[in-house]
């Protein structure tokens, strides 16, 4: 099983990197890009019996290590 974990800064937290990337895109002429939020992406290869089990484990990993709940939130996708 593969669990994909997307970690991003919470909407309430200012993202200086994302803002800078957005400004660079504007410089390149991509004026229609309104905003950019930069995050982290993890691929976890998991030995799990089913998708639920893989998701549970990935969620625990995200809570404990992959994200910092003070500033970040995450989303998980599981594929077999």
């Amino acid at each position: 099983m593969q669990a994909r974990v997307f970690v991003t800064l919470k909407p309430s937290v200012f993202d200086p990197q994302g803002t800078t990337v957005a400004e660079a895109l504007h410089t390149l002429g991509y004026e229609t890009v309104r905003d950019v939020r930069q995050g982290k992406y993890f691929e976890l290869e998991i030995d799990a019996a089913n998708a639920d089990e893989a998701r549970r484990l990935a969620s625990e990993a995200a809570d404990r290590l992959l994200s910092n709940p003070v500033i970040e939130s995450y989303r998980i996708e599981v594929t077999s």
Partner: protein
Amino acid sequence: MKFAIVVFPGSNCDHDTYHVAKDVLGQEAELIWHKDRSLNRADVVILPGGFAHGDYLRTGAIARFSPIMHEVSKFAAAGGPVLGICNGFQVLLEAGLLPGAMLRNRSLKFRCEFLHVKVEQTDTPFTLACRPGQNLRMPIAHGDGNYYAEPDVVARLERNRQVIFRYVSAAGEVTDESNPNGSANNIAGICNETRNVVGLMPHPERACELAVGSADGLSVFKSILKWGRESFVEDTLTTMTAEPSTVLNK
């Protein structure tokens, strides 16, 4: 007093801190490897600056799971004084020993320079020898020092007088220009609710001798010694006054 200075893979201010404790203050000091499981009866623990585990994932995120951190947490819970400097502060935040988190500097630049920090509170083991409002000239060297916490958490820190150091101008004013990284309320350092755990981004250990540009950081280290003397007197008095009844009860 005995100083324990924790060494993570990637720590790079460990020897500066050791030098200040050992050579400048003339105290006992020991470098403790992050995989050790004992603080060897230290009186004070310092998590030094650097880039523990290469700052991979997030600053301090991997270091907080080092075996020694279990001992540091126990030591802190028992009231022992713990100081996190720069990366050490980031480790304390990730470990949950202090509230909040660090974001990338708002300028996105790694800032390495001398600046001014105001001592907001003097009732911690690391500011006891400072004057209230004292303006310390110390260097910073970080890319992720933009202190963030939810607004209600920041409000609680202010209410509880847990903001210990604040970035200020040379004249001691809290201004946006004197804020090097975008930290909420110009926060440069905070303490926990029991006031024995303190973290700060500036480097007092790099400002303890005039030869390196400033000796203002000595106030932080002298505070530890003052705290040690006072808590020793307090312990002795408690023991002395407690003794007669203890004897009678036997």
